[in-house]
């Protein structure tokens, strides 16, 4: 088993995949707490479907670097969804359902009708669940992923205190002169970037899991924002890394293995949290 792992690690593409996986896992876990607490988790879900639709269009157009198209469109949708979420007249969740299911349907349709590939269902499956795509990343894609993950992490660190203020009590922040709208806007853009990045790792259907589970695990054990954030980041990285290693050794699909590890950790922390709460 160890031998198989060491053997795999000799290949640059496997090492690349591990690096990208860790970076993506790190950046995706950071905003999880904010998303869960602001009741934004569904936005992440909706956006991932949008990203799927755009990806279908990109692959039909024959773009070699799909991120160039997917990223801006997803960011636009994120901004739109956030705006409509604040609007009391159009229900935010209805707008999200519309966009996400619509994008999913059109994405699949486009892929089926226009695809030049001989294995359409295989393509769709790998876009939705990630399958082994992480192992086939080109150097350019690795660089793009790395750069954007680092930007997201850096932005999060710099905006940490603002994000806390806006997440905990938006009205108070706004009333005391914090530009809450601007920070919400930045948060939405960061979410969109994270989703596009995560798509490479776990596929578009499983992205929410990557964002939400580490945050939920952390929240069931820790009781202050800083510890929750740090634990979410650490657990996300550890889960992604062990998920990828398991998938190499056991030959399972990368995305679902990582998510399975995330779920396992969540269940574990849930019971640890229960135990602690019971004693206190």
């Amino acid at each position, binding site marked *: 088993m160890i031998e198989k792992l060491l053997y795999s690690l000799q290949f640059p593409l496997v090492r690349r995949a591990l690096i990208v996986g860790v970076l993506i896992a790190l950046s995706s876990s950071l905003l999880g*707490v904010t998303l869960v*607490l*602001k*009741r934004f988790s569904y936005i992440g879900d909706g956006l991932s479907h949008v990203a799927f639709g755009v990806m279908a269009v990109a692959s039909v157009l024959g773009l070699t670097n799909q991120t160039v198209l997917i990223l801006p469109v997803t960011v636009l949708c994120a901004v739109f969804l956030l705006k409509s979420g604040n609007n*009391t007249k159009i229900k935010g969740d209805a707008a999200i359902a519309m966009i996400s299911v619509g994008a999913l349907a059109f994405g699949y349709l486009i892929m089926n009708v226009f695809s030049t590939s001989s294995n359409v269902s295989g393509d769709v499956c790998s876009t939705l669940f990630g399958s082994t795509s992480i192992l086939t990343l080109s150097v350019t894609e690795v660089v793009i992923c790395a750069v954007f993950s680092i930007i997201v992490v850096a932005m999060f*660190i*710099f*905006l*940490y*205190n*603002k994000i*806390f*203020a806006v*997440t*905990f*009590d938006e*009205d*108070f*922040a*706004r*009333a*005391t*002169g*914090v530009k809450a709208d601007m920070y919400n806007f930045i948060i939405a853009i960061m979410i969109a970037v994270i989703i596009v990045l995560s798509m490479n790792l776990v596929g578009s259907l499983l992205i929410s899991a990557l964002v939400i589970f580490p945050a939920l695990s*952390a*929240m069931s054990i*820790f*009781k*202050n*924002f*800083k*510890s*929750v954030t740090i634990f979410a980041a650490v657990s996300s990285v550890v889960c992604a890394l062990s998920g990828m290693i398991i998938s190499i050794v056991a030959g399972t699909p990368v995305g679902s293995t990582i998510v399975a590890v995330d779920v396992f950790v969540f269940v574990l922390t849930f019971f640890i949290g229960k135990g602690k709460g019971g004693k206190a």
Partner: protein
Amino acid sequence: MSFISAQDLSLGYDKTVVAENLNFEVREGDYLCIVGENGSGKSTLMKTMLGLQTPMGGQILFGDGLKKNEIGYLPQQTLAQRDFPASVEEIVLSGCQSHMGLRPFYTEKERKLARTNMERMDICDLKKRCYRELSGGQQQRVLLARALCATTKILLLDEPVSGLDPKVTNEMYELINSLNKSGVTIIMVSHDIMAAVKYASHILHVGKTIFFGTKDEYIASDMGKLFVNMGGERA
């Protein structure tokens, strides 16, 4: 010149007017209680003063050196806060954001301000505790400390005692009163007319008829007599 003055203010949302012709002013050191029935526009008025909502007519003027973001605010609890993992210290510190601008991290100055206000609210021993595990009264103290980090000029309190038991309610009123004595201007939205009459210097009654004046004027007015008696009977 007064801190806040409202001129012919009308309030509402989605084209429905909930309150009209509001005229009042708040001077430095005042303790204004806003009372009125449910749905009379008390919370809307609060939100408008905080700049979270635009008035439908008339205007609110800020003066006497009070800037728009120098208003501290004690909100009613939101749903998100009920399961928010945050320590008392983190929440109190977040009040300092109002004068941070784009600066990303807190310095010793902000930490000291947070410490001072935690001492003032007598919650230093809760510093590391999780906010959601505190009692209602303790939570209100935390939010008060946060508001004091944002400003010491004026505080807007939205139903600060709702959900608190009578003993804690009294403590809360005394605390707010002592803040007012130390120079903090207070505007409080309340259901509790008896407490309003006991502590406030001015009363604004919103509803079908509008009253604004000092506490004594209110007690002497027909409307005041009616409501104070009702409140008294209930209590």
